[in-house]
């Protein structure tokens, strides 16, 4: 039962942290609960469908169908996070300045967080499909003791979700005007983590062959399957033996999003004239 709980916990953790961070990043935006719930729900429905079709998908394209699906999921999720980082770091700052001047913390004027809702849905889809497949394996399979395994799965799911909640409430304690900076950095690192996973999936499927050697081995310092390693893998994409391609994707994601954000801010700064009477 414990082993089952641990496996489900590991699968859940990544999506749960993702949701926790996104929920904190969208605090105060009108309708965000609805958007994020819609993202999570459609991700769950998609996960059931993906798990149901796993056998036929796996056989696609000469046995790399699963990787192809993951490449698409990761790419779209990555673009959504990039979009959020670039958009919110410019408009979001404007909004929080306005909010401060008006003495309120509402962010009613902000656009619906559809990009983040979609990214959340995709995270749930990817991790959820694996969990569904795993759980359905011992429900329909021949292995004995499926009853205790179901309890184990439920416990794992609960523990993973709890960590997501902890992340959310932890971030919620940060004061509103600093919350932007913190959640934006976290979303940026999530994006980089997705980019690194994308690189690994491309190599595993044989689509990309270059820079496949691992650059270093830090498993003696922090093993990937240790609790902290698992946590950091989910949060910032920690890998004990990253390939050159993974590091390249990781750094490129941060650089591209960073440069685009800077350019947007410069553009914004030219247009944005703070009111000298209200400015602090």
């Amino acid at each position, binding site marked *: 039962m414990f082993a089952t709980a641990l496996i489900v916990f590991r699968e859940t953790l990544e999506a749960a942290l993702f949701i926790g961070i996104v929920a904190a990043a969208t605090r105060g935006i009108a309708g965000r609960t609805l958007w994020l719930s819609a993202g999570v729900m459609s991700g769950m429905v998609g996960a059931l469908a993906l798990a149901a079709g*796993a056998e036929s998908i796996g056989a696609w394209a000469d*046995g*790399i169908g*699963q990787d192809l699906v993951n490449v698409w999921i990761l790419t779209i999720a990555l673009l959504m996070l990039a979009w959020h980082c670039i958009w919110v770091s410019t408009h979001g700052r404007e909004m929080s300045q306005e909010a401060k001047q008006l003495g309120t913390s509402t962010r009613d004027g902000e656009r619906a967080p559809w990009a983040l809702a979609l990214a959340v849905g995709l995270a749930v889809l990817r991790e959820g499909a694996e969990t569904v497949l795993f759980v359905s394996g011992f429900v329909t399979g021949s292995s004995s003791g499926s009853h205790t395994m179901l309890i184990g799965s439920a416990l794992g799911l609960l523990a993973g979700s709890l960590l997501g909640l902890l992340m959310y409430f932890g971030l919620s304690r940060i004061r509103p005007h600093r919350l932007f900076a913190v959640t934006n950095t976290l979303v940026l690192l999530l994006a980089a983590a997705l980019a690194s996973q994308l690189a690994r999936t491309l190599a*595993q499927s044989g689509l*990309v062959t*270059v820079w496949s050697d691992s650059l270093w081995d830090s498993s003696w310092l922090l093993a*990937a399957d240790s609790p902290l390693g698992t946590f950091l893998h989910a949060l910032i994409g920690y890998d004990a033996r990253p390939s050159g391609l993974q590091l390249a994707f990781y750094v490129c994601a941060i650089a591209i999003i960073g440069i685009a954000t800077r350019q947007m801010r410069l553009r914004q700064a030219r247009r944005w004239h703070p009111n000298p009477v209200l400015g602090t």
Partner: protein
Amino acid sequence: MNTGFTLGVSLRCLLATAMLSACAFAHAGDPEANLVIRNHRFDPAELKIPANQRVKLTVHNQDDTPEEFESHQLNREKLVPPGSKVVIFIGPLKPGRYDFWGEYNEATAKGVVVAE
């Protein structure tokens, strides 16, 4: 709109990077290796493959439960649905031993890739 423009530029940068790094695509000449999962065990448990070459590894899960092929040393992780065959490209590897296991049945599903 500016946002769209910037995103467009970033998209193009991303695409360019992807294409640059993908200059060498899969080719037919990769040596192949096969693994079978039966009763939550890998067969063969010790898989010999040529070193310094990329290898096309086919994993056939003959159980009626899913398995996840996982290896930190090979930097690979892939689901193998019940009754399915999946392909995982590994390497090129330096000569040595590389542990792998089935995440869903860690107690029994263990193996090692020997590159030589």
